[in-house]
């Protein structure tokens, strides 16, 4: 197991290098580099050319790309992701501020998705072709085809704008409501109001795929010989389903969990834009559009690492859920 882990971790290095190299090369070929953005040269043509080149020199953009990439990798391995061009602070600081907000949202969504999707899928499968089953699979199938931001806007209009101010349309918290001036109960209450719509939206989108997957996995297992054996030896139906069948049906769910983690990182861009949530997706989007290379690269690197870790976690989880699997 530990040897396998070391091998897997070592395998991540070339993948990370290729992934960051691709991102780096694409990014640095963007027209209208950061110096133009910084001085607003695209709107105002009278910016002094010497100031532009001074900025390029200061940011090291005049060096050949391979040199720049090498420098970035060298610094990144030392934990230094550089300085933001526009925010005048370290990229690690920018990430440290935005990441917890994204994690807060996505962890709640992740837990809720699993807690709701697994029972829904199981009941759907056990009562296959019942009215409940048709309702759940129908909503899940349709929901999978709906754009997230459309669902978000439907909720913003249908719920938030008709809630008399109880549910905010977007944002992270009310201004000035923080722990220093309010009691913790009112701060948490305030945060929960803002969390409500993004959590409902993201959980619904996550549910659609996972429920369908759980249902088909459970149906598969219910057809297996060992399920029939469990029934034949006279076990109560509840025990057959929740002990014998469910455990096996969860295996494929573990497999797709890596993808779900990855989609949370990527999906944060849309979700945080539509709800003005100041997390990593929003900050990353603004950095890419504004040509803030160090911030963009830092967030891309972090997103890539999170995705890789997601897949690694899945592999580790296998060992615990499936005794047949052993790595050596």
């Amino acid at each position, binding site marked *: 197991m530990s040897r396998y882990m070391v091998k897997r971790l070592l395998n991540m290095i070339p993948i990370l290098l290729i992934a960051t190299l691709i991102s780096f090369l694409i990014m640095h070929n963007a027209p209208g580099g950061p110096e133009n953005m910084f001085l607003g040269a695209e709107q105002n043509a009278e910016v002094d050319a010497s100031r532009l080149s001074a900025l390029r020199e200061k940011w090291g953009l005049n060096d050949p790309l391979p040199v720049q990439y090498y420098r970035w990798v060298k610094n990144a391995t030392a934990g230094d992701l550089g300085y933001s061009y526009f925010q005048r602070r370290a990229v690690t600081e920018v990430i440290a501020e935005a990441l917890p907000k994204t994690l807060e949202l996505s962890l709640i969504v992740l837990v809720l998705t699993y807690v709701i999707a697994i029972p829904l899928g199981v009941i759907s499968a056990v009562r296959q072709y019942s009215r409940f089953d048709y309702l759940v699979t129908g909503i899940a199938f349709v929901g999978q085809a709906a754009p997230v931001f459309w669902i978000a806007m439907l909720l913003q209009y249908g719920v938030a704008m008709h809630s008399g101010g109880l549910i905010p349309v977007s944002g992270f918290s009310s201004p000035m409501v923080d722990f220093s001036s309010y009691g913790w109960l009112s701060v948490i209450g305030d945060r929960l109001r803002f969390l409500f719509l993004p959590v409902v939206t993201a959980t619904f989108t996550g549910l659609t795929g996972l429920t369908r997957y759980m249902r088909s996995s459970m149906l598969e297992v219910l057809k297996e010989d060992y399920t029939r054996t469990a029934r034949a030896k006279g076990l109560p139906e509840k025990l057959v389903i929740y002990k014998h069948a469910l455990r096996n049906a969860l295996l494929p769910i573990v497999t797709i969990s890596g993808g779900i983690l990855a989609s949370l990182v990527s999906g944060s861009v849309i979700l945080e834009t539509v709800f003005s949530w100041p997390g990593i997706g929003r900050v990353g989007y603004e950095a890419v559009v504004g040509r803030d290379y160090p911030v963009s690269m830092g967030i891309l690197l972090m997103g*890539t690492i999170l995705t*890789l870790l997601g897949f690694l976690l899945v592999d580790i989880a296998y060992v615990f859920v499936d005794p047949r699997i052993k790595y050596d």
Partner: protein
Amino acid sequence: MGTPADKKAVAVLDASMVGASDEPLWKSIVKRYWRNKAAVLALVVLIFLGLVAVFAPVLAKEPIDFINVVVRHKPPSWEHPMGTDFLGRDVMARLIWGSRVSLSVGFIAMGMSVVIGTVVGALAGYYGGSWLDILLMRIAEAVDVIPVLFLLITLVAVFRPSIFNIMMIIGITSWPSLARIVRGQFLSLRARDFTEASRALGAKDARLIFRHILPNAIAPIIVSATLRIGTAILTESSLSFLGLGTQPPNTSWGQMLNLGRQYLKQAPWVAIWPGIPILITVLAFNYVGDGLRDALDPRMKQ
């Protein structure tokens, strides 16, 4: 001969063995697809949408850039069945125009993705285990682990959001999953007897790949291609929603949602209608994909 149950069993057996009867292959595929009513309905819906896109100039009551601020933000009425937007443009007319961009982006991005995915997957699978296989699969994995929306917006920032660029960008970011499917098919097919036989007869690699192995791997490629169109339409709408997709005066369903978002309170209809064609189109492609999977290869049936 035999009981009705026997006959039914024989029929099922026939249907599950492609080419077992004298019927041409395509006929039995059409027959099996026809039996799936949801998939047939979905196909009808798609043909209808395709016609709407083709005949947009006739069907839309206003030109794409027609502005009439006097009727700004009018709710749905007989005059404007889906209301008007902030420039007084008829929402229904714009939905009809938007179908052109959304559908063509879906098809062409899918085409790109399928061509790249098939070539990469075929090469990696046919030369499985070689340095080429390892290199191609490493690149596929690297593209796959970069959070896709970040990659997309980075590419759009470089190439500028024209419709053509959007198609290419969606295509070149979505091939890895298909490459893996094709690679898996090639790995198993290259070891089959028919491949060995043609090799023994002196067939060159290119002939083996394109004439012998690829036709046998085509079913999962077609199914994946169909599902990809829906995904590409969703991706285009996400990019347009972020303001990085289709640019005015052109319009797409995603772009309309982005514009509608800014006036959600005053004119909710502008932000609600465009979601429906996206939903229906993606749903229809999903049903057609499912139907094709069952029709092309009954063994793939879930």
